[in-house]
């Protein structure tokens, strides 16, 4: 079967600096891949490259069947990315934000509302401007925005950072549920214990290339929670 993500010798330049210096990586559908590496190793750039946000200047880069070197826009509808920043409009309410991002991706308002339910944000916060929320709460809203898109490939950049226990558990649960529903997940994290518990594979990045790659012990995942299908 065609790998979902296929990178061969991928080079990404940020300015003149080679953030990725020849990455070789194949990810099969349904995998949960943990990217580990020191700060500056290239994890974030790798995720952004898969999202088509940065230009791959050399090598092969095919994600979800789209050749990123030919057209890096087409793949975006099918992926969901959670970056360092929360990508929310400060003055808009939680509901406004999630609905906007959902509709932008072609999902419906119903999907958006269902996603909001899923991230367990207290009801009283729904009509509050996002600027007034705590970091953890904002992350939940971002998660809801990504969830509402129902992406085939999840790209998560340090999803546990700055979150409390409950929120971290929620992230793990959502990741497992997504994979169980057929999605593929790439996540970069420094929270190795937690991440290794949910990942099926661990890839080590250093100096802009892949240094290590190992399968992780298959974890018996709890039965996936109902992924609401708001049809």
């Amino acid at each position: 079967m065609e790998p979902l993500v296929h990178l061969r010798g991928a080079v990404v330049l940020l300015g003149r600096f080679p953030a990725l210096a020849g990455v070789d990586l194949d990810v099969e559908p349904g995998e949960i891949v943990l990217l580990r590496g020191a700060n500056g190793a290239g994890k974030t750039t790798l995720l952004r490259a898969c999202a088509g946000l940065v230009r791959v200047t050399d090598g092969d880069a095919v994600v979800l069947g789209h050749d990123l070197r030919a057209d890096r826009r087409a793949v975006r509808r099918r992926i969901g990315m959670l970056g360092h920043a929360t990508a929310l409009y400060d003055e808009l309410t939680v509901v406004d934000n999630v609905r906007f991002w959902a509709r932008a991706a072609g999902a419906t308002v119903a999907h958006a509302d269902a996603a909001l339910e899923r991230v367990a944000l207290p009801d009283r916060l729904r009509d509050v401007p996002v600027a007034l929320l705590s970091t953890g709460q904002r992350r939940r809203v971002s998660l809801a925005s990504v969830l509402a898109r129902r992406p085939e490939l999840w790209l998560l950049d340090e999803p546990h950072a700055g979150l409390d226990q409950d929120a971290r558990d929620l992230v793990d649960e959502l990741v497992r549920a997504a994979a169980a529903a057929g999605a593929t997940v790439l996540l970069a994290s420094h929270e190795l214990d937690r991440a290794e518990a949910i990942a099926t594979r661990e890839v080590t990045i250093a100096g802009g290339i892949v240094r290590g790659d190992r399968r992780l012990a298959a974890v018996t995942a709890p039965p996936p929670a109902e992924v609401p299908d708001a049809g």
Partner: protein
Amino acid sequence: MTTVTTEPTRGVDVDDAPRSTGSPATRALGAVVLALVGLLVLLGLVTSPAERVQGEAVRLFYVHVPTSTVMFLAVGVAALGSIVVLWKGSVFWDLVAAASAEIAVVLTGLSLVTGMLWGRPTWGVYWVWDARLTSTALLFILLLGYQAVRALPADRTTRARRCAVAALITSLNVPIVHYSVDWWRSLHQPATISTLDPKIDDAMLVAFAVGMATYLLGYLWLLIHRFRVGWLEEQVADLGLGDALAERRAEGLADAGGAP
């Protein structure tokens, strides 16, 4: 941090690197331009007559009008290059456009100065809000804006695209500015004050033609050289890449040796 070495970059024979942007073709071109300049000075200042109405001031005409015309040509070339950059993304055309735009700034400035020098004996003041001067002043500022965009730090493709858009916005504006300023001045003043075009006789026509040729070829010469400087700059940047890649991977080895 790795120390900066002074060894020549690997893979390049420094002796082969060009020492200047000249070539036999440009030297020949340059010689022709110099000859034309000499001829222009002779014709413009010495052998052609003064005009009835404007007196000696008309001699600026041989310089001012060619400057203006070539200025528009330079902007046009920049626009053309920009279209190609946005359409196909070509490094060559990006450099051509940038070089042409830079020369256009100089030409526009010159056009303003010669226009003002022409105006002083004719109108008694250095500046009037005449349609041509005003449009040129606006173009000058637009081009300075372009230079500001060019100077922003960015990678090659980003800079090329931003500059292409800026250049196109500028050149699309040129006819609009021309018409609006023209109508504006004609509203407030009868047109006579703008008609400084002199009655031309044969000797003046020759001088004028030489002036046009001088500026045209001079622009071409400048364009080629400025383009080559840009081209060499890009090549220097590219040469660094192989080393940068190697350095980057070496980082990884050092890191991966220890704890991740």
